[in-house]
């Protein structure tokens, strides 16, 4: 496998899934072509102004920023459906339409969803 697509379709907090997915994607950098795709409730991970201090959980937006070389795409319809379009997104996240999102998934050798 030369490329891997990590798909997140659950909200960033409330379970360990988003944190686990970001860690798995981070350790894959440099070994394979890595894309993180945010879909459905996973789109909330793209929000730039996250504050997780009350949850005693790492700020996942800061993790995205720390791995600026990681390709992160967010499904635009998911963003729009959740009323997030006018919110500021993490600077490294790319907003893509449905077609581009599916192309990125299909173009990867391996799809992993946690």
């Amino acid at each position: 496998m030369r490329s891997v697509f990590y798909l997140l379709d659950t909200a960033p907090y409330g379970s360990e899934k988003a944190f686990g997915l970001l860690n798995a994607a981070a350790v894959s950098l440099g070994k394979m072509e890595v894309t993180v795709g945010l879909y459905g409730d996973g789109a909330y991970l793209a929000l730039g102004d996250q504050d997780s201090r009350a949850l005693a959980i790492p700020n996942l937006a800061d993790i995205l920023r720390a791995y600026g070389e990681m390709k992160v795409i967010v499904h635009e319809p998911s963003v729009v459906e959740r009323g997030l379009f006018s919110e500021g997104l993490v600077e490294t996240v790319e907003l893509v339409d449905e077609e581009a999102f599916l192309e990125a998934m299909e173009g990867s050798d391996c799809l992993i969803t946690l």
Partner: protein
Amino acid sequence: MKTLTIILTDGPYISEYAQIAKKIAEAALKRYQVNIFLYLDAVHIPRKGQKPAFFADEGGLFADLAREGAVIRACSRCAAARGYLAEEDGSSQDYPDGIKITSLYDLPVMIQGSDGVITLCR
């Protein structure tokens, strides 16, 4: 020989994925190398001494898989968070022989060397 990697994230019994993984891996081992990576709550699956009243002992199922040649590795961060400690060689007194607690860095190595990857999670 081709290689199959199976990634699990659920703990035992909350879903059928551990048993499904066991069936897939057992069939695949007849022809392929099989890796299993235990991530998040899946690090509970191989724990020794499980005695479920109404289900198969999933720790025992995975001990069988390790004996049959599957490479089974658990994420060290996830394992430590849940109270499983590894010896220097990755073995753990909580796990059957052959199942090791190693680094998350083993996951991309497994994926990179695989011809197929199956993720089983809810």
